[in-house]
């Protein structure tokens, strides 16, 4: 069982009347709501939290990419990951991920991820989402009708750039490069493990199976809402003759742990309401650009309740109440034993070996995020640790250099002063 600590980096100072006054947290959120001095403090606190999660023993720290988004302050997760590469030593760095179609040329991603893999000594997990409509089609102006075609071509280009031994020309439909020859190339061979965050599309499942990639379902609506999607994924794996290795899958879950359930209910109410109220206030105008969903996916939505639920969950038109957040399992709340028991059930029921935990959410302050993280590491993590490992191997985890041969940051000025 791998326990991974995920940060969205939400802006924590959206006004109380954000839902009433403003149209959307994404795409056309007013520029005036962002204060760079607050941003300065938040980035540093959030990076403190990520470093702390690594220090207390999480298997990985995760960052992701959003644009023009009030709950995701990482247009470039690679910047954060590269800082983490220096400030952590053994923890995997999961970039979940880079939206391949947005970069011109996409070799930029191959280069940056290769840099991070080299800096970190081979600790990188390379996530490649298509990206949400809000990020890709509206904030980044990509043509929704071409997005997936561009995504798949960019994927092929990055993979070739990572693995082909000689410089080559790439004559793609959208990318023409006379010389592809990235320096550096990744430390992990043949390349860092590739994980694909996706919605409930059958085509994505089939592609992950064909490429032997990890499929991640990153929903903000918890294990109860995610169950149907993960069941669909495993049915498809079975149909394709793949084993049920739980490490084929990743799943995102919000968690709030405290000494007692009562205490947890008290502590996490405000940040959860902030997240589900303000952060998910997304205008549905930006949810369904034409061509973003393939015709096969549209057909499935017409005929299947499963994907209808997934579709609805992309946008939250009503803020959720605290009772609903807890009852529906958007956030798993409780004492360490209660949280461990629920997460064991989630992992077993959804058959997920990579649990990505959101323990800072909404406007949660650093001290509470650290408390949530530490208590989890000390009292929940040990109860989940061995799950799956006697039966399954995680073939999709980074393979860093042996610790003894890995470089560590040297504070040269301090060393000189000491000499």
């Amino acid at each position, binding site marked *: 069982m791998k326990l991974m600590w995920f940060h969205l980096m939400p802006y924590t100072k959206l006004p109380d009347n954000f839902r009433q006054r403003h149209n959307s947290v994404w795409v056309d959120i007013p520029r005036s709501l962002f204060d760079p001095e607050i941003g300065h403090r938040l980035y540093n606190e959030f990076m403190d939290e990520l470093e702390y999660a690594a220090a207390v023993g999480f298997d990985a720290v995760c960052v992701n990419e959003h644009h023009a988004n009030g709950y995701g302050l990482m247009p470039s997760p690679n910047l954060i990951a590269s800082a983490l590469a220096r400030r952590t030593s053994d923890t995997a760095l999961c970039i979940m991920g880079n939206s391949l179609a947005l970069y011109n040329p996409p070799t930029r991603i191959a280069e940056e991820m290769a840099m991070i893999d080299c800096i970190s000594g081979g600790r990188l997990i390379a996530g490649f989402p298509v990206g949400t409509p809000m990020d890709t*089609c509206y904030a980044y102006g990509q043509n929704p009708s071409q997005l997936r075609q561009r995504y798949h071509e960019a994927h092929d280009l990055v993979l070739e750039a990572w693995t082909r031994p000689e410089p080559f020309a790439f004559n793609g439909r959208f990318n023409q490069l006379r010389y592809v020859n990235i320096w550096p190339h990744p430390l992990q061979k043949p390349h860092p493990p590739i994980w694909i965050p996706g919605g409930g599309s059958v085509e994505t499942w089939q592609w992950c199976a064909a490429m032997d990639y990890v499929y991640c379902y990153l929903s903000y609506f918890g294990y109860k809402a995610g169950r149907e999607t993960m069941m669909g994924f495993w049915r498809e794996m079975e149909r394709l003759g793949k084993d049920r290795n739980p490490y084929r899958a990743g799943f995102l879950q919000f968690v709030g742990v405290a000494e007692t359930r009562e205490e947890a209910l008290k502590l996490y109410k405000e940040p959860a309401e902030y997240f589900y109220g303000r952060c998910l206030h997304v205008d549905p105008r930006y949810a369904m650009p034409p061509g973003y969903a393939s015709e096969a996916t549209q*057909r499935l939505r017409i005929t299947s309740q499963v994907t209808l639920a997934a579709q609805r969950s992309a946008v939250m038109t009503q803020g959720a109440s605290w009772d609903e957040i807890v009852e529906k399992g958007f956030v798993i709340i409780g004492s360490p034993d209660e949280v461990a028991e629920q997460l064991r059930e989630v992992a077993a029921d959804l058959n997920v070996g990579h649990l990505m935990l959101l323990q800072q959410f909404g406007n949660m302050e650093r001290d509470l995020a650290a408390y949530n993280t530490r208590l989890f590491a000390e009292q929940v993590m040990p109860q989940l640790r061995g799950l799956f490992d006697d039966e399954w191997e995680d073939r999709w985890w980074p393979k860093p250099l042996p610790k003894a041969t890995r470089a560590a940051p040297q504070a040269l000025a301090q060393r000189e002063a000491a000499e």
Partner: protein
Amino acid sequence: MSAPAERSVAVNGVPCRIWEKGNGQPLVYLAGLAGLPRWTPFLDRLAEHRCVIAPSLPGFPGAAGHDTLDTLLDWIAATLDLLEGAGFTGGDLLGASVGGALAAEVAAMAPGLVRRLVLIAPFGLYDAAMPPVDLWGQKPGILPTLLTTQPDTYKAFTAPPEGADANEWPIIQSRANEAAARLLWPLADTRLARRLHRIRCATFVLWGVDDKVLSPRYAERFAQEIAGKTTVRLIPGAGHLADLDAPGACAEAVLAAIQ
């Protein structure tokens, strides 16, 4: 209205429907947003005087194959293939909305081919002072009142035709929407402005006064920049899909212009 005759031609190997009705000199019509889910009163009026030929552009109802068209050049080549397949070897060309943008391109790129050009609220230009509306960033359900002044007519126009597969019909409609977006995303600027001076034929520009998608003031820019003699006519009470809103007035104006 009797049904038009139907045939099919291949564009890039994908079949595209061609409807034809009426007698007289041919008049080719390239439809706008939503394409032609069914034959319209406007086309019927034209068909009383002309042989109206309505080929479906790739991706619009009756055709697929939009997903292989990546650039404007691909679209222009596909439109020329389609016109050729429809038997258009020169004559009068009429295009509305999305079809108008491509009809203008054809007239600019193959000037000898078009005798008289009629454009109904064509896309293609972008003026920052009056940008085309973001068609694909709208609240769900708003499209009928955005595109037309007669939302009920629009709803009837886009309702599943008799015998259509109820599950497949929404796919066909969203495909048309995707095809338009494929050509026009994100700003609906096809850089047509750079080629308007190459349109040398007599041109007639028709615009709904109540067009909420493209300001009728774009008509003046077409008139200024097209090299051929260009006449503008505004249609009161009509929106972006002017020939759907005011079929009689539009048909009369078109027939008078191409006499």
